[in-house]
């Protein structure tokens, strides 16, 4: 198949007391090979749990209640949700890797960089000698442009800066040449000049290694810089999805329009910024109709009653809004 990862009808729930609360609602996504795919949305929209679900990393009491995640691995197609713990471990790092938001907290403070890099290698290749592992680690550090790689290998995390740590996290994630990299807000904790370095690095690694990247971020600027395709999440659903140039040129959903206007009106002619009134409704407090209805300036009576389906507004451009289609979500 042409798709590397195919998520269909994914639904994630949690427990609040004895009540089951939905956090993600029937999300469909497919990531093509050698593609960089962006997931954008505000906090609490379900971006990170989608990525965590792919690797089976949802913390209790969160769980996948419905749906499937199919992955086209080197050894043939797999349904990730049906894998045993052991089979999943073989996928993590080797086939699919993840980098997390805060490089400062995702490395273990009591081990050197070398030990943490070697661990990732020996997990999948237990027969490698120490010297071979060191050689591979050095090579990876050079690939991510770490100055003085030998010295860095024997350093502890606290001796390195945030930008260096995130490079090391990327190096560890790419150690076993995975074919899919899930990057959950990889530059949010970093400064803009360092962010520019990391984004450039990720782009070039993707080209070199033929890795697909899923970039999760709240920053539309990062999406515009790095991704080919993008899905906009709102309240546990995809509300718009398209190629990046299409999405920015012909933004269809009022929520995406609002997000863009909120950031681009900064520094614009008008003193007052465009705002989307209200807040993202938390899981369990979603409206019956369109979940954006309360905050939308084009909301109609119908939007409050019925939920619009995610349909094509233009070829390849999906949007969940009655402005573009009459179809109702089943």
């Amino acid at each position, binding site marked *: 198949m042409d798709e590397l990862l195919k998520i269909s009808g994914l639904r994630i729930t949690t427990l609040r007391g004895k009540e089951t609360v939905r956090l993600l609602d029937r999300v469909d996504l497919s990531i093509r090979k050698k593609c960089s795919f962006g997931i954008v949305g505000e906090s609490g929209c379900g971006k990170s749990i989608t990525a965590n679900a792919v690797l089976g990393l949802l913390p209790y009491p969160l769980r996948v209640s419905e749906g499937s995640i199919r992955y086209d691995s080197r050894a043939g197609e797999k349904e990730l949700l049906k894998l045993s713990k052991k089979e999943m471990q073989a996928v993590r790092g080797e086939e699919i890797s993840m980098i997390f938001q805060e490089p400062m907290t995702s490395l273990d403070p009591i081990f050197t960089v070398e030990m943490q890099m070697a661990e990732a290698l020996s997990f999948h290749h237990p027969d490698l000698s120490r010297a071979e592992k060191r050689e591979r680690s050095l090579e990876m550090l050079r690939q991510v442009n770490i100055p003085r790689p030998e010295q860095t290998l024997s350093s502890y995390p606290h001796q390195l800066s945030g930008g260096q740590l995130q490079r090391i996290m990327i190096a560890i994630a790419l150690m076993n040449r995975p074919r899919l990299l899930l990057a959950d807000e990889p530059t949010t904790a970093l*400064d*803009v*000049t360092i962010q520019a370095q990391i984004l450039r690095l990720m782009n070039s690694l993707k080209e070199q290694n033929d890795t697909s990247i899923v970039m999760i971020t709240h920053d539309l600027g990062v999406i515009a810089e790095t991704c080919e395709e993008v899905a906009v999440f709102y309240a546990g659903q995809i509300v718009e999805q398209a190629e*990046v140039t299409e999405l920015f040129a012909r933004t269809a959903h009022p929520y995406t329009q609002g997000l863009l206007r909120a950031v681009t009106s900064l520094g614009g002619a008008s003193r007052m910024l465009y705002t989307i*009134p209200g807040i993202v409704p938390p899981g369990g407090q979603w409206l019956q109709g369109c979940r954006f209805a309360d905050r939308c300036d084009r909301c109609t009576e119908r939007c409050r009653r019925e939920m619009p389906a995610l349909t094509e507004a233009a070829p390849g451009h999906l949007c969940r809004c009655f402005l573009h289609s009459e179809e109702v979500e089943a």
Partner: protein
Amino acid sequence: MNGGRDDALLRVEHLQVYFPVRRGLMRRVTGHVHAVEDVSFSVRPREVFGLVGESGCGKTTAGAAVLRLIEPTGGRIFFKGQELSALSEEAMRGKRRDMQLIFQNPYSSLNPRMNVWKLLSEPLRVHFRLSDAELRARVLEMLARIGMTEDQLERYPHQFSGGQKQRISIARALITRPSFVVADEPVSALDVSIQAQILNLMMELQQEMELSMVFISHDLNVVRHISASVGVMYLGSIMELGDTEAVYRHPVHPYTQALLSAVPAHDPTRKSSHIVLEGDVPNPASPPSGCPFRTRCPRCTALCAEQKPALTETEPGHFAACHHIA
């Protein structure tokens, strides 16, 4: 420099803050972190001055030192013509009703055990002697201004969203009717759609209450929107200073140029015209000799290592600290 403006409400001259580094059993001072090396600027009445820079450049420390929440190591601060750096602790406390601070993180800056009524009335009790009726009137007036209602008075911080919490902490800072506030990254912890709401509120209040403000942020777009003039900091020193539009449209310092070009554009057709800086910000405990930016500067020469460039005027009201600006 623009510190020379006579009409300034606040004038900061060569502010310096060092923190001692202690080592060993005797906790002897073995060195200093040069958090703020040399910062001078001034804020006119009803003006918003933006202080922008990356993390660790000393902008927060500079803001706190202006209010003497951290004692400056050197330099002078004038507020309404009076030298703050010479005031006693006691006299400084009296000044604080006129000079307030808005914190970055509303999740940790509000006491979780105080309800809205207590949070908002506390500053009034500290600084004024008001009757119960007056107190209540002032609190309700402020509450209305931040778009909240009387029935929310009994609620506690955890019952509010991040945006509402930041409204409360803004109200808490402004309820004493100060003429000057330092706002330290007031929107950084918030989501994009909420950021715009809070920025609008801050701009409205700034106009209504005729506030002067030092607005500290790492977000270049936000600073551009809210401030009339701006200072760009790097490793404890101001690199460039001037009217916001002049600095953003025609940055002259190589650091400002790189910083501005690193901001992702919201336009996928205009990809990567970045000046990507190599390396990291040096450790402020052992800053480089000469120009603080020289270790990452594409235009660095021998002169930069020997001499620290002073802020010089390149155009009227526009200053930059670089040897290579004609």
